[in-house]
């Protein structure tokens, strides 16, 4: 008979395998970034000696990486704010107000998130060329809304639905109009849902590539993802993997920290949309 002990051991081995599967490649990126550039092809599991030369190289002014990080922040930040400002109202209306046709409205909003980016990008680029929007922030921010806005509406709808209906009922009994009930009662209580949605929208926009790649060709307007894929070496190797890994760690660290601090919220947000 298989004892409970063997089962427990097997389970822990499984957990260990999952963690290794998820973290090993990321660990390899971290380790590779911390080697001396001359040790780039060493395959030892611990960098010895430790060196930050790759990070210096990544931030070499010729790469324009610092500026690219700022651009990423501007694009992801503005998209998040813009999208939330719209989605809070839409999410509330769909989740809490009783009106005909809300099913089709939500279906349309969700369906737009399934449209392939390239289908939207081809005509948008055509327009952006005509109106001189190439190499501008708005040319990255507006198309980013195509995926961030449905995501935000979807998440906020799920969140608003979970709030107790007695809140508005009490507000209405106290003489609030539906609009006031929303402003004075619901909105302040919705802060956690808004925050979670902001994190998800920010991560989605921070990771965006095809739009930023297509509407910008000037180096000082490129986002971190785009400039990283175009890095050329400061050292003698064809492809400066060490530098790229260092820059990759820099781009990823804010996201990994968010994940560590807010994992519960993020998982709630992700699953509220898909499964529940």
């Amino acid at each position, binding site marked *: 008979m298989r004892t409970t002990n063997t089962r427990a051991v097997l389970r822990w081995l499984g957990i260990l395998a999952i963690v290794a599967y998820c973290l090993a490649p990321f660990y390899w990126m971290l380790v590779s970034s911390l080697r001396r550039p001359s040790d780039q092809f060493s395959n030892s599991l611990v960098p010895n000696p430790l060196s930050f030369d790759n990070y210096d190289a990544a931030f070499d002014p010729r790469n324009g990486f610092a500026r690219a990080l700022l651009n990423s922040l501007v694009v992801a930040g503005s998209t998040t704010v813009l999208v939330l400002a719209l989605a809070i109202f839409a999410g509330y209306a769909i989740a809490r107000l009783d009106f005909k046709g809300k099913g089709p409205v939500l279906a349309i*909003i969700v369906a737009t998130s399934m449209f392939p980016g390239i289908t939207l990008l081809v*005509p948008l680029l055509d327009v952006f060329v005509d109106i001189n929007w190439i190499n501008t922030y708005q040319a990255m921010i507006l198309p980013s809304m195509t995926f961030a806005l449905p995501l935000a509406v979807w998440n906020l709808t799920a969140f608003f639905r979970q709030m107790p209906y007695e809140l508005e009922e009490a507000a209405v009994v106290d003489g609030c109009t539906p609009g006031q009930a929303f402003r004075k009662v619901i909105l302040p209580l919705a802060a956690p849902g808004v925050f979670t949605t902001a994190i998800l929208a920010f991560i989605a926009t921070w990771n965006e590539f095809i739009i930023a790649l297509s509407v910008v060709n000037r180096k000082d307007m490129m986002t971190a993802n785009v400039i990283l894929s175009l890095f050329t070496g400061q050292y003698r190797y064809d492809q400066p993997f060490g530098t790229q890994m260092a820059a990759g760690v820099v781009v990823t660290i804010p996201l990994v920290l968010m994940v560590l601090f807010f*994992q519960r919220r993020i*998982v709630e947000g992700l699953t509220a949309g898909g499964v529940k």
Partner: protein
Amino acid sequence: MSAPTQTRPPAPRRRPGQAREGAHRQAAGARRRRAGIVRLAALLLSPTLLALALVVGYPVLAALRLSLTVTDEGINPETGLIERSSELGTQNYSDVFKGDTGDRFVNALWNTTTFTLATGALVTIIGVVMALIMSRAFRGRGLVRAAVLVPWAIPTVISALLWKWVFSTDGIANDILNTKILWTTEGFQAWLAVVIADTWKTAPFIGLLVLAGLQLIPAEVYEAARVDGSSAWRTFWRITLPLVKPALVVAVLFRVLDLLRMFDLPFVLVGPRKNSVETLSILAWDEMSNLRFGPAAAYAMVLFVYIAVVAYVFVRVLGADIIGRGVQGRK
């Protein structure tokens, strides 16, 4: 009708005194309130719908028009200048299937489909296994969950660079396998590298979504199965899988739609204009970057229709319930 203005059948709760009011007045009040709610809903929804009409609705229609616009360049015999003329026609679409461009299109369609099938199957299996392992409560669960989110959080471009490094000639993959495979050059191995990298990044995410579905299955169901002497294998196929299916189908649907428009990973890991990994998105992008907007839009529209058909099949045949829960009132 009394106060409730939100999604919900009217509650029988009434304030004292309300009962004395005339039924007529009540009905008029309810109608006024109802109109108020509809107006409020329209007000709250219109900014979002307007924005989507602008950034999604307009581009889809414009893409359709672009794809039906045939541009010809020719030298005007009178002035000697190069002139562009545009007219409506289906030439962009007929070119999609003809000659060299036809071969390139079929190849991209094949890659898009095989990437979707292979990666979709792999992430589903690995995701379900991960979810089953994580489904029991254990200490340190929060940390494991954070670890599972790491591949999801890493930008696709960064993960592509990371795997390019792992798969480089002198990289760790060849070192571990004791091979000298040129992973990221044309050939089946490049296709495989993309599948591996994408599976790594997205399987844990499927695992999390399935895990959320698993946790909704009441313990009593398993209890009953055990009492009836059902084996673990049988329990999985007969109980766990059917009950987790709604969550799984939605998770896989979203993954599959993402796979069909895959761009970043093959583009960065292997590169553009590489036969072995060129997807429909990359093909359309390449045409666009050469300012051939008409053909680019035609490819993009074909991809659009392909995705719409797959989504339709998922919703109709597999019963993916993507919005049903969104419009339910309170439980």
